[in-house]
């Protein structure tokens, strides 16, 4: 029987065809991801409709129809019904510096530049000559204090003149940099074997975590003077910084304690077996790993602290949010709340979003694949 006698039997492989047009490329992706089921299709259409109904209007309001040159809200409204950014243009220096004397703006600006310089060695571990640079980072708080408040040859500036983003950054940055070391000490105390130290740490942490920050700020505002010896009087910004630091360090302690607990027992035992003392094992073995595990939590605490700095408006300090009321009280800008809140929200968003992205980058970089 001739093998060619059946015309319908193939003698060779057919050439492979590409997948159907509708299943690959953009079309295929759209079909599989956006319209795979009736529910999915409905969700997609609903989302696109939501985006379509919000975004063009928003862009129109914020950019195309916005007014930058005006002296009052009425003037803005006469030109168009878009955003009246003129208020920001007129008052941006207030939102940045509060009531800091304008001729001295160079001092906080210089302090901010130095802050960026001091952050580089702390955040970039591959930096050449990092050791020397870190010394500068350690000296930075004192330099910044001198630059902002003056004294020793510079004109003194009182705390009541501080405000705006400057105040937010003072409270936020000092809270962040002091709360981490205090948090580490508290976490180590809480997970130590010594009952007295442990219970002191528990009492402190649970007390701080059990009350809202606003009550601690009230304490700083109305009560702290009672607890200090007569004649000793802290500056209100200092008192707020102390309270915010204590508050954040309790949360920080719990985050780090989570990291300490998550480390496998073997790490502690291995450190002991090597004959390392407590501090050596903590510094060389335990803390580097525990802190690495806790990075997302630590950065979340930082972000929360930075956002919580807005609470100082309740005790009368002029942070950006606190400046909204005086602005609205101005006859010319009465009723312009949307633009002000949008601007401040944007300002905070940039800082917090940057921090969260940096933590994701750190997580990826430090992920050594052991877990």
């Amino acid at each position, binding site marked *: 029987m001739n093998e060619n006698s059946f015309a319908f039997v193939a003698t060779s492989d057919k050439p492979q065809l590409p997948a159907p047009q509708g299943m690959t490329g953009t079309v295929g992706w759209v079909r599989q991801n956006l319209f795979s089921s009736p529910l999915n299709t409905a969700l997609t259409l609903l*989302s696109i409709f939501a985006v379509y109904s919000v975004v063009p209007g928003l862009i129109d309001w914020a950019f195309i129809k916005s007014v930058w040159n005006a002296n009052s809200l009425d003037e803005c409204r006469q030109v168009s019904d878009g955003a009246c950014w003129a208020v920001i243009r007129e008052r941006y220096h207030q939102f940045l510096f509060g009531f800091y004397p304008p001729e001295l703006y160079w001092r906080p600006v210089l302090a901010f530049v130095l802050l960026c310089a001091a952050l580089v060695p702390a955040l970039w571990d591959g930096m050449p000559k990092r050791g020397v640079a870190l010394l500068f980072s350690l000296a930075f708080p004192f330099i910044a204090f001198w630059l902002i408040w003056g004294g020793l040859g510079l004109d003194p500036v009182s705390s009541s003149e501080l405000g705006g983003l400057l105040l937010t950054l003072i409270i936020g940055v000092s809270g962040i940099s002091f709360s981490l070391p205090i948090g580490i000490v508290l976490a180590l105390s809480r997970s130590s074997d010594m*009952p007295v130290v442990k219970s002191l740490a528990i009492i402190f942490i649970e007390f701080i975590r059990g009350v809202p920050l606003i009550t601690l700020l009230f304490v700083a505002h109305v009560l702290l003077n009672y*607890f200090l010896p007569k004649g000793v009087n802290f500056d209100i910004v200092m008192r707020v910084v102390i309270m915010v630091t204590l508050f954040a360090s309790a949360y920080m302690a719990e985050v780090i304690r989570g990291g300490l607990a998550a480390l496998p027992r073997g790490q502690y035992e291995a450190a002991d077996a090597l004959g390392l003392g407590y501090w050596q094992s903590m510094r060389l073995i335990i803390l580097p790993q525990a802190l690495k595990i806790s990075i997302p939590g630590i950065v979340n605490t930082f972000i929360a602290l930075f956002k919580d700095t807005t609470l100082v408006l309740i005790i009368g300090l002029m942070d950006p949010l606190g400046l909204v009321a005086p602005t609205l009280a101005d006859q010319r800008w009465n009723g312009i709340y949307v633009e002000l809140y949008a601007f401040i929200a944007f300002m905070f968003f940039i800082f917090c979003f940057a921090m969260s992205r940096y933590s994701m980058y750190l997580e990826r970089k430090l992920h050594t694949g052991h877990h």
Partner: protein
Amino acid sequence: MSTLTVPADNSFQFSQLWRDGRYRSYTIQIIALVATLSVVMMLISNAVGNLEALGKDFNFGFLFQSAGYDIGQRLVEYSPVSPHWKAALVGLLNTLLVAFLACVSATVLGVFIGILRLSSNWVVSRLMAVYIEGVRNVPLLLQILAWYAVVIHVFPKPKQAEPALGGVLVATNRGFYIPAFTYEGAYPAVVAVLLSSIAGVFIFRSWAKKRQEATGQILPVGLYSLTLLVVPAGFVYFIAGMPIGLELPTLKGFNYVGGIKASASLVALWLALTIYSGAFIAEIVRAGIMAISKGQSEAASALGLRPNRILNLVILPQALRIIIPPMISNYLNITKNSSLAIAVGYMDLTGTLGGITLNQTGREMECMLLLMGTYLVISLSISGVMNAYNESVKLKGR
């Protein structure tokens, strides 16, 4: 041959206190205790001295004096002549009210958003990511103030307000009105039947579960439960002549009366807390579901389970264990964050005891102690209850 010898006790040297591991921990603890106690003693003696210098004493008698200020939003009887402790109680109940409302609504919103965020639909999951990132990175206080501005500027005055949803909800710039229940006649019978129906539903469900485990047969539990809940109570309701009614808010003069009023500040606070905490809960839910390995859902579908059963029987029970602990701290955060109410004038515990009462009486020390103590008790009890629940669903180690 040499043997290790323990040094005799009489050779104790002073330096052993910090060089010898046996004594060092005692040294450190005693130093820590003495240092802490002396700091605390110093603070207290300062406070006593300063109070004396100002001619103030330390007593809580002011709590029984007349408060002299009114509170619009209240859950219990209160008038300006009521004592300060009653004002604090109204504030405490207001704190608990907004915290409870926000916890419930934020959970619903958060679970919904969290699941949508995990959707394979690119557009939907991106949109949810924008919501989560946008809300989480903006201070809560700003959001509360912004929502308050929206409520008082966008919604109409009571005079021009149109009742929405068939007269059930009236949204005005002074607050939102919803209908209230009115009770008359034989209403206890209806309530009693409803309560026993609820108990019956629980018994039925546990019986149905046992039956399913024993025989493998599945009853339409949801349908039966609903029937059991609605039919007897509805029957008694009509037999007893409809003793429970709805009182709709109606416009009288310049304001709405009747129904339940939620003041503008309560609405703003509740909205802001819901939207803010919803974003955090969404991330918790997402992390919990993502932590369950893909093998679990694949194994479940290989067993032939339908998608909703996979979620109910395989994914959720495991995800809940991961979700609950961060959820507890989120509920605590909502409760503590409700103290920001003071910024929009909602009279919660901080606004009454830590605000007007403190300013009127000048009793900073007493008011702050009470305020912090109360928040501490609330926080510790919430975390106690939730931790007990967490214990009960935790994976039992064998």
